[in-house]
């Protein structure tokens, strides 16, 4: 009987201890898996979000993140100028404006209006209906359609917050031409999209020619495109998606990585301690048997291998169980975290990554080895004669 079979029989011999160990490892392994998914999940998801559409360079007036800094003035002209650069295939200015509707029971309902101008594709995908083209046409997100009880063909009274005082402005009736997935919709947000001209019209014709950001589709290398824009307009910030990702990572997501690192260390340590305790108790209960096997000629290496394999089996079984458990837990936690206001609605915290899975397996393997070190030392240094004597006396 080889070490694996021997260790397996040892585990089966003590089902309660084995079950406790495997479930313990499965629980902490699930947490470990989640921490590893969380560690890079936000960045992966944000990268996916940034790259979801064809825009690969973003232009803002300052280094602040979009929707948090000053606006780009003369948006239409600036967008046109950028579009004319040879490194640019298309560009689109986007302006986020606060909007207001009367909801159920005439309670005011806050919303966001995304006004666009330019030649690049709009930042939404129409689910049903069509894109808005006219000066009084909009698309609404699914959440907006539900909250405002509208659908394709409905008319909405649009009130927006303009640069000038808006109290006296009457709502602008706009027609819903489509229900769409809006790329920049935030969690819990009600979003409406349409031409920037709609915003200007809703503001009574006052100048609304400003943009939070200009989205650019490069003609080739986005870094060259960003450099060309910076060269042509030194007053603007042009960053590629990758640079934007780094900026977001540096400013907003470091906390998650730090938390993830701390919890990863805690879970690995806890897992190792749990298995060490279980194996040490098990080995101490079997000292007589181990000494007898050594007396019968089983080598020290073989006995050490038995402990290591036993540890590996417990951790291996726990690790296998931890993956579906961790994934289910990740889905639940992701659902909770995504409800945080102010985050892109399509952003995920826990994203499957092959690297995270491999790291999880590597950490579990290291845990099995780490956990077995102390009980292996007990076996390795066990004095055969003294143990046999002690067992008889005991």
């Amino acid at each position, binding site marked *: 009987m080889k070490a694996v079979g021997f260790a397996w029989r040892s585990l*089966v011999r003590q089902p309660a201890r084995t079950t406790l160990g495997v479930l313990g490892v499965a629980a902490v392994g699930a947490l470990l898996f989640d921490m590893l998914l969380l560690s890079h999940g936000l960045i992966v998801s944000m990268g996916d979000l940034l790259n979801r559409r064809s825009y690969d360079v973003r232009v803002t007036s300052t280094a602040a993140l979009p929707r948090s800094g000053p606006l780009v003035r003369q948006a239409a002209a600036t967008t046109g100028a950028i579009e004319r650069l040879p490194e640019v295939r298309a560009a689109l200015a986007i302006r986020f404006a606060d909007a207001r509707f009367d909801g159920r029971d005439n309670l005011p309902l806050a919303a966001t209006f995304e006004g666009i101008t330019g030649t690049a594709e709009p930042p939404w995908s129409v689910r049903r209906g069509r894109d808005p083209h006219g000066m009084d046409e909009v698309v609404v997100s699914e959440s907006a359609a539900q909250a405002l009880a509208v659908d394709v063909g409905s008319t909405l009274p649009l009130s927006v917050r303009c640069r000038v005082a808006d109290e006296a402005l009457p709502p602008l009736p706009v027609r819903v031409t489509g229900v769409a997935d809006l790329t920049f919709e935030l969690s819990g947000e009600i979003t409406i999209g349409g031409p920037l001209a709609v915003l200007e019209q809703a503001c009574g014709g006052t100048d609304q020619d400003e943009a939070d950001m200009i989205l650019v589709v490069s003609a080739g290398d986005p870094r060259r495109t960003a450099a060309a824009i910076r060269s042509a307009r030194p007053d603007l910030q042009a960053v590629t998606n990758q640079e934007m990702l780094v900026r977001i990572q540096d400013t907003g997501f470091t906390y998650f990585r730090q938390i993830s690192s701390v919890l990863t260390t805690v879970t690995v340590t806890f897992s190792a301690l749990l298995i060490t305790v279980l194996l040490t108790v098990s080995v101490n209960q079997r000292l*007589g*048997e181990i*000494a007898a096997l050594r007396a*019968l000629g089983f*080598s020290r290496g*073989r006995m050490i291998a038995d402990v290591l394999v036993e540890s590996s089996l417990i951790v291996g079984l726990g690790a296998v169980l931890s993956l579906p458990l961790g994934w289910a837990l990740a889905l639940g936690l992701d659902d909770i975290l995504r409800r945080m206001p102010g985050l892109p609605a399509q952003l995920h915290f826990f994203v499957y990554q092959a690297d995270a899975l491999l790291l999880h397996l590597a950490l579990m393997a290291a845990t099995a080895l780490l956990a077995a070190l102390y009980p292996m030392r007990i076996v390795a240094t066990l004095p055969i004669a003294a143990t*046999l*004597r002690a067992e*008889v006396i005991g």
Partner: protein
Amino acid sequence: MNPEHELRSPKRDLGTVRGDVIVDADRVSRVFQMPAGPVTAVHDVTLDIRAGDYVAVRGPSGCGKSTLLHMLGCVDAPTGGTLRFDGHDVTTLSDRARSLLRLTHLGFVFQRFFLLPMLTAWENVELPQSEAGVPKPARQQRTRELLEYVGLAARADHRPSQLSGGEMQRVAIARALANRPRLLLADEPTGELDSATGDQIAALLDRVNADGTALVIVTHDAGLAARATRILTMADGRVASEVTR
């Protein structure tokens, strides 16, 4: 001293080995370093164990019987003197080599049996052969023979918890014989058994010896010791007397 992988019947060919020195202990001592000071458990013991010998070691508790047995069985090393197995100084052997020596040339029977509870009687007997690398068909044949030899063929699939004390000790003897040891060492083999069962085990050990395996038994049981051809009586770590019959 390579593992003996070939299998023979439990009965040895006495004509070729009887009388050869298996273990030669020359003024061996064993001193334990205790917090209160060194304790000499075995002091200047000289003896040899020859093929076919049946040696009983007697004496009061703490006189060094088990320590001597452990040294003869290469699980403990003397702190003084020399101990040779088949002419090889065992104190110079590595731990691995001593393990191999025990696996292939020595058998141990313990007072508390120390059968592995998660294995059946069959698996317990098969285990040392598996460790010695005996091929499966030969292993199975040898295991079947040994369980028949100890009268437990019908209990092969039983776990130790399903066996009586006497049956467990018989399985332990079969396990000790699994790799055809030249020397079988038993430490109080009847110590946990009632007298009737102890007699059965004693009879089995007689048979093992008669079939060619040298025996060294440490025992308080006068009846068991009386079956031996050499009786060593120890006192204060020394061999106080030796009676050969």
